[in-house]
């Protein structure tokens, strides 16, 4: 692997290897928490915090972990940070804690975090891994916020509504985009809207990058955090028919 500059590591996750839109990993939290900008931002920041911390710790200790038990070790480190984030949110931002609900503990099985631990932090130094964590986390957060904005504007007609973790004044109702004259299409904040907006955003990314086609045309095993440890990729992709 050639040596990359610090800046390219940082920006890699934003566009070129955007975890959600290009690598197609971490789809569950993306779809579930992008119902409004507020929850999208909360989820993005929580996952980013876990990603940065776990990348730093894993890159610092990867030399002393025996190779064949590294995945359980990585999972333990990640789960520890998820628990810390969970407890901090429960104590200081209870509204966000209840809005994210089940998806907060599920950060631990977010493919992005284990995937980066395996693909990047386990092979690189502490500083590079921290930058990679920041870049990937920001890429995830930005994608979530773009999807959250589209779904919130189409779904409710307002933008940036919410209590903003208790910081916004109680009269804040969000910026009205078209809520004054058309009611929102609430289907957009429901499950089908999530899939649909995700499809449109991804098709748009395909459209603008169609010349530099590095876009994945399919899912397959690369979307799985266990890719590099999995020994059955061929059979798996062919199915169990064999």
């Amino acid at each position, binding site marked *: 692997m050639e040596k990359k500059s610090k800046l390219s590591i940082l920006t890699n996750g934003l566009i070129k290897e955007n975890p959600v839109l290009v690598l197609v990993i971490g789809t569950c939290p993306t779809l579930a928490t992008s119902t409004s900008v507020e929850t999208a931002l909360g989820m993005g920041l929580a996952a980013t915090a876990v990603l940065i911390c776990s990348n730093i710790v894993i890159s610092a200790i990867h030399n002393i972990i025996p190779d064949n038990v590294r995945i359980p070790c990585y*999972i333990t480190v990640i789960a520890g940070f998820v628990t810390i984030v969970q407890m901090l949110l429960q104590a200081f931002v209870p509204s966000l804690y209840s809005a994210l609900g089940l998806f907060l503990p599920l950060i631990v*099985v977010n493919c992005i975090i284990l995937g980066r631990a395996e693909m990047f932090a386990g092979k690189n130094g502490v500083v590079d891994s921290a930058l990679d964590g920041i870049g990937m986390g920001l890429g995830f957060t930005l994608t979530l916020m773009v999807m959250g904005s589209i779904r919130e504007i189409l779904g409710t007609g307002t933008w940036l509504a919410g209590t903003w973790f208790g910081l916004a004044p109680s009269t804040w109702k969000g910026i009205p985009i078209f809520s004054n004259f058309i009611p929102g299409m609430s289907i957009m904040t429901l*499950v089908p809207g*999530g899939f649909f907006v995700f499809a449109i955003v991804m098709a748009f990314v*395909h459209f603008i990058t169609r010349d530099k086609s590095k876009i994945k045309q399919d899912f397959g095993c690369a979307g799985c955090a266990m890719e590099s440890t999995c020994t059955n990729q061929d059979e*798996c992709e062919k199915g169990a028919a064999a």
Partner: protein
Amino acid sequence: MDFTKIIIIIISMVLVNNYPLAQFLGICPFLGVSKDLESSKGMGIAVTFVMVLATAATWPIQQLMNRFGIGYLQTVVFILVIAALVQLVEMFMKKSMPSLYSSLGIFLPLITTNCAVLGVCISNIDDGLNYFESLIQAFGAGIGFLFAMVIMAGVRSKLEDQSRIPESFRGVPIVLVTAAILSLSFMGFNGMFS
């Protein structure tokens, strides 16, 4: 334990609260492994199996942790228990049931990081279900997952010829549009139980 309650839990997990199509859990394998019918079935059955086993293991552990006042370690303990359990099942299957291993075993390593498995364990605790209800709920969630996977594989087999799809929508986006339409039809089951 009366029979109607069991039926209600199963129907609600399969149709109303279907994991991939109504709750966004287990989307990665739902989109990734649903290319053909055989692998969808294998993945669905393997997930159901692991879900029931994981619930059987994690529910008593949570009670034990609550007794000692360390319930907050839920996330750490559950994911390690699931990872160890999957590994154990894989080893056991390889040794004593090679024919089953060749059809289901290849999906097992992928299941550790499947959010539907951890999700069902945590939501069983959050919903305050008893041990038997938890097992039924896990079973229902797995069957719902299998159901969604098989439907998706059926639809995707009709999409194999991608030449009529706009270029930007080929590959992943068209699968997502398919999932959107499927979940729209599953929304029809909303309000089946009040």
